[in-house]
């Protein structure tokens, strides 16, 4: 019962703030709603027993990525709002229509999932450690060591690329 109340409350806030992110005119307000949205997603991770991921969500998303967005919003002069410029060739209705098509597709997938028998969860592989953070760390440094290293290379490349792109002249 308590879990259901927590789930529905957190879901309502996640969806509310997501709608506000895409519908607000002021870009700065949009970024701030994005922070709130990420914090509620972190709360959902706690509800699902993923404490490490919740901490990462708060630190990396709400702390790092959103600050990056705020800096760009401040650097870019938005005195002339992009929405004021009306392109006669743009068809907003087509955008809504395509989104509705994706929604129908997802609904079909969910309905198909309900039609079949529920999959039985496989026997959980026994990890030699207990605790959420320890288990994630164990998997990252054993089975997923090479993807982990590739991710670090990706971050290095992204860092160099961002500097090269944003610098005025090299």
């Amino acid at each position, binding site marked *: 019962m308590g879990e*259901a109340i927590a*789930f529905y409350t957190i*879901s309502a806030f*996640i*969806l509310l703030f*997501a*709608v506000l*992110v*895409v519908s607000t005119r002021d*870009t700065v307000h*949009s*970024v701030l709603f*994005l922070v709130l949205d*990420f914090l509620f*997603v972190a709360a959902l991770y706690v509800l*699902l*027993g*993923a404490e490490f*991921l919740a901490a990462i*969500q708060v630190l990396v*998303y709400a702390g*790092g*990525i959103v600050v*990056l*967005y705020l800096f*760009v*919003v401040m*650097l*870019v002069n938005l005195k*002339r709002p*992009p*929405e004021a*410029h009306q392109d006669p060739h743009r068809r*907003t209705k*087509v*955008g*809504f229509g*395509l*989104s509705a098509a*994706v*929604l129908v597709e*997802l*609904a079909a997938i969910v309905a198909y*999932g309900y039609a079949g028998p529920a999959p039985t*969860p496989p026997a959980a*592989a026994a*990890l030699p450690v207990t605790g*959420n953070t320890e*288990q*994630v760390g164990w*998997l*990252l440094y054993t*089975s997923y060591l090479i993807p982990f290293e590739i991710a670090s290379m*990706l971050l290095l490349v*992204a860092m160099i*690329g*961002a500097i*090269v*792109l*944003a610098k005025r002249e090299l």
Partner: protein
Amino acid sequence: MITPAHYMILSAALFIIGVIGVMVRRNIIIIFMSIELILNAVNINLVAFSNQLQHVVGQVFAVFVIAVAAAEAAVGLGIILAFYRNKETVNIDEMNLLRW
């Protein structure tokens, strides 16, 4: 009783909101934020199934998704800044240099 289907529906709703943001808005910064919402929807799915199957491998994949999202945000915002320096706009309707 909250089943994984509830989490899937929440995730699908968040995904659709992100898709609507990408399709309808003209401000490229808002479009990037909608992409972050879509990635979050994917992460909710991964963590919900990780909880259902009692195995943390879904959370490991969510960590990778967050790393890729961070890289994407850094490079994407660098591109926005470089473009803004040239054309003084963040409106995607005016970003039509490669348009056929």
